[in-house]
C-alpha cells in the first residue's frame, strides 16, 4: 500500500518534550500549586487481621499535621475494584485488613516530614488471623475464609476435598472430546509449571495531586491512569458521587505495564482535597508501590498433552490455579485470558481446561503485560519443547507442524480465518537466526 506517513519513519510526537525535560509528569506539576498539602497513608501492619482500635490523636498532635482521616470519617464509602468491588478505601473498625497494602488512615500535613512523623505515631489494636500465603493452602478445608461474605458455586472440583470459600472465580473450557483425543495419542506428556510474583516496575511509581472546586463541587485529579474513564467510574462509585464530579487530567505517564489500571492514589486524594478544600499530593515511594499495588499473578499450570507419533497434537488438558492475592482486581479476566491461550498458537482438536483464581493474603495481583497469557506461554511453549525432544523432532519443525493455519479452531472454538500468520513468524525467525534447516511446511 502506498502510504506517506503510515509505516514510515516518523519521530514520536511526544519525544521532544521528553528529551528536554519539558514533559510534565505528575510530580512535575507540584510546583504549580501553592500550599500543597502532603498525604501519607498508614498501611496494614499485618497481612490478615481485624482492626479493633485506632487512635489517631497522637498524629494530630504532631506539628504540621492538618488532619488525619480514617474510615469513620467517611461512612458513605463503598468498596472499589476493576471488576469486582471488593477492596476497601480505608479499613474500618472491626473490619479486616487482608494484605499489607490495605490503608488504615490518611495523614495530611503541611510537609511530607510531618505527615510521616504523624503516620508513625498512630496507635493500633489488631486481632491477628492466619496469614494465607499460598493458593493451595487457600483451597484446603480448614483454611480461614479471606473475604467473609464471598460466596461462590464452583462447578468442577479438582479434587473432592477442595474447599471453595477462597476461590474468586472458576472457569472452564471443553472443546470436542479430550478423552477420545488422549486415547488416540501415542505419547502423553504431563508437566507442572510455576511462575512467580512479578512487579511491573514502571520507572514512575504512583503519584497524584488533587484539588477541589467549591463552585462546581468538582474534584480534579492529576494522576496517571491506563483507562481514564474507568478510573473515574471506580472513584465515583466508591465515593457515592456522580461521575461528572470526578475529573481526571492525564499528565505524561512514566510507564505502566498494567500497574496503572487499578486505583492507587486516586480516592485518597479525592477525599482529602474535598474535605480540606485545598490541593493535596500523594506520592508513593518504591517500596509502597511494590507492596500496595498489583503484581503479575503467580500461576501453577499443569498441562497434559497427547500427541501422535507423527507429531500431531491430539489432546490438550490444562489445570491452572492462580494466586490473585487479597483482592480481585483484574483477576477474573486474567484467569480467563490465560485459559483461552492454554494451547498457544497450536491446533489441538480436543481441549479441556479448568482454571481457578484464588484469594490469599499476598499483595493483590492485577494486570501486567500479557495478562495471564504470559505465564501460560511459558508453560505451553515449554511443553511443546518437551514433547519435541521426547519425539526426537526438531522443535521448530514440531511447532510448524502444529501451528494454526486458516481454518484452525482455538480452544474457545473460534474458527480462525483472518491474519493467521503464525507459520510465517516461525519461518522468518528461523531464517533470521539461521536455525537448523527444517521443513517450513511441516
Amino acid at each position: 500500500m502506498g502510504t506517506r506517513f503510515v509505516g514510515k519513519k516518523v519521530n514520536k510526537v511526544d519525544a521532544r518534550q521528553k528529551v528536554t525535560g519539558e514533559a510534565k509528569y505528575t510530580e512535575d506539576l507540584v510546583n504549580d500549586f501553592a500550599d500543597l498539602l502532603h498525604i501519607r497513608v498508614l498501611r496494614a501492619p499485618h497481612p490478615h487481621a481485624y482492626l479493633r482500635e485506632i487512635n489517631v490523636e497522637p498524629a494530630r498532635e504532631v506539628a504540621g499535621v492538618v488532619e488525619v482521616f480514617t474510615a469513620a470519617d467517611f461512612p458513605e464509602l463503598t468498596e472499589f475494584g476493576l471488576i469486582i468491588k471488593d477492596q476497601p478505601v480505608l479499613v474500618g473498625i472491626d473490619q479486616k485488613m487482608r494484605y499489607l497494602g490495605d490503608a488504615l488512615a490518611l495523614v495530611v500535613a503541611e510537609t511530607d516530614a510531618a505527615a510521616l512523623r504523624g503516620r508513625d505515631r498512630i496507635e493500633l489494636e489488631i486481632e491477628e488471623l492466619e496469614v494465607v500465603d499460598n493458593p493451595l493452602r487457600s483451597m484446603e478445608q480448614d483454611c480461614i475464609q479471606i473475604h467473609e461474605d464471598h460466596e461462590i458455586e464452583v462447578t468442577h472440583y479438582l479434587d473432592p476435598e477442595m474447599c471453595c470459600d477462597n476461590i474468586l472465580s472458576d472457569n472452564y473450557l471443553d472443546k470436542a472430546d479430550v478423552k477420545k483425543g488422549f486415547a488416540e495419542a501415542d505419547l502423553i506428556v504431563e508437566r507442572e509449571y510455576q511462575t512467580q510474583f512479578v512487579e511491573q516496575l514502571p520507572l514512575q511509581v504512583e503519584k497524584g495531586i488533587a484539588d477541589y472546586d467549591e463552585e462546581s463541587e468538582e474534584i480534579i485529579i492529576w494522576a496517571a491512569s491506563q483507562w481514564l474513564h474507568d478510573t473515574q467510574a471506580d472513584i465515583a462509585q466508591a465515593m457515592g458521587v456522580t461521575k461528572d464530579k470526578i475529573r481526571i487530567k492525564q499528565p505524561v505517564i512514566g510507564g505502566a505495564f498494567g500497574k496503572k489500571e487499578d486505583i492507587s492514589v486516586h480516592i485518597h486524594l479525592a477525599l482529602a482535597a474535598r474535605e480540606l478544600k485545598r490541593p493535596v499530593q500523594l506520592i508513593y515511594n518504591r517500596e509502597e508501590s511494590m507492596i500496595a499495588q498489583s503484581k503479575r499473578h503467580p500461576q501453577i499450570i499443569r498441562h497434559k498433552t497427547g500427541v501422535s507419533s507423527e507429531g500431531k497434537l491430539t489432546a490438550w488438558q490444562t489445570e491452572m490455579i492462580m494466586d490473585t492475592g487479597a483482592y480481585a482486581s483484574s483477576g477474573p479476566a486474567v484467569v480467563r485470558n490465560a485459559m483461552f491461550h492454554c494451547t498457544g498458537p497450536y491446533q489441538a482438536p480436543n481441549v479441556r481446561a479448568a482454571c481457578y483464581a484464588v484469594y490469599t493474603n499476598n499483595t493483590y495481583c492485577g494486570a501486567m503485560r500479557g495478562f495471564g497469557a504470559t505465564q501460560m506461554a511459558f508453560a505451553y511453549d515449554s511443553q511443546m519443547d518437551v514433547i519435541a525432544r521426547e519425539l526426537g523432532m526438531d522443535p521448530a519443525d514440531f511447532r510448524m507442524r502444529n501451528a494454526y493455519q486458516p481454518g484452525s479452531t482455538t480452544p474457545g472454538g473460534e474458527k480462525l480465518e483472518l491474519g493467521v500468520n503464525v507459520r510465517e513468524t516461525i519461518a522468518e525467525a528461523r531464517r533470521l537466526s539461521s536455525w537448523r534447516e527444517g521443513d517450513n511446511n511441516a
Partner: protein
Amino acid sequence: MATIMFGFGYGEGFPDHSIASVEPVGENRILIRTSAADVGQGIQTVAVQIASEVLKLDPEYFEIVEGDTHTTQNAGSSSATRQTYFTGQAVKEAAEDLLGNIYHHASQEFTTNHPEMAIKDGRIFSHVNSEDEMTIWELRDRLADRGIELKGRGTFFPRTYKPDPETGQSERVYVGYSYHTQVVEVVVDTVTGQVTVEKAYSAIDAGKAINPAGVEGQVEGGTAQGLGMALMEEQVIEKGRTLNPDMSRYLVPTALDVPEVETVIVENEDTDGPFGAKGIGEPAMIATAPAIINAIYDAIGVRFYRLPVTPEKIKAALEQN
C-alpha cells in the same frame, strides 16, 4: 525458540470500543481528541500518523488533546494490546469523517463535486478550476459563519461473543490474534550459574506496522521484560510480607543484561484494524521467557519448570547432574 499467540482486545463479548474526533483548530492545526493513555508505547504518534495519512497532511500539523475525562470520550484502556487497533481505527474513521465533511462542504463552496477535487498539505483544491482553492482552516471559518462545525468523529466497536460458561466455546472470543516467534542464543556459565542471553531474533506479526521503529521498540523492551521474568525478577512474598521491596533486591535487567534483538516485522495487512494493523504490545514480550528456558535446555540439558531461573537454580541443577 518459542512461538506464541495473543488474542487482543478485551474479548469474550465485553463491550470494547474507542471514540475519537479530529478537528481543525487555530490557524493551521488539527486537533485529535482521544483519551487513549500514552504510557510510552506511542499511541499518540500512531494516531497522528493515521490522521496524517488520511488527511494527506504532515504530522507537524497535528496535536493531541491532553487526556481529560471531561473533554474526551472513552477510548478504553491502554492494555489488552488494543490501542493501535481500536483507537487507531477510531482516529482513522474520525479523520475520514472529517475528510468527507471537507469534501462535502468544499464542493458546495466550489460548486463542483468530490471526484474533481483533492486535498494536500492542508489545501483543498479543484482539478477543474484552479482558482477554487482554500485551506481547511479557511473552510472551517466560512462554515463557522454559518453555524456549521467542521469536525470528524469516529467510533470503532467491533464485536466479540460471550463464551458458554460451561465449555468456553464462542464464535469469536477475541477481535484478532497476533503471533510472535523468537529465537534466543544463550550462554550458561557453569561456574557461576549465570545465564547470558547473547542475541535474540524476533519475527512478529503486526498486520501492518504503523510505526516500524515503535514495533521494534516494543519487541526490544518486551524482550528485556521477558528476560527479567525468565532469569531474575521475583517479588518474594513470605507470609504476606515482601522481602525485597526495592530495586537493589528486586532486579530488573540493566543495559548489560539485555541482548541485541534483531526484529523482522511480518506484514500481511490482514485485519479490520487501521491499514490492516494488529496490536503487538503484549505479544512482543510473551515469547521471551519460554524461548530462554528452551534455550537453556538446549545448552545444558536441564529443563526448568519454575521461574525465575536464577544462577542458584542453574548451579543446583548442574550440581545434581
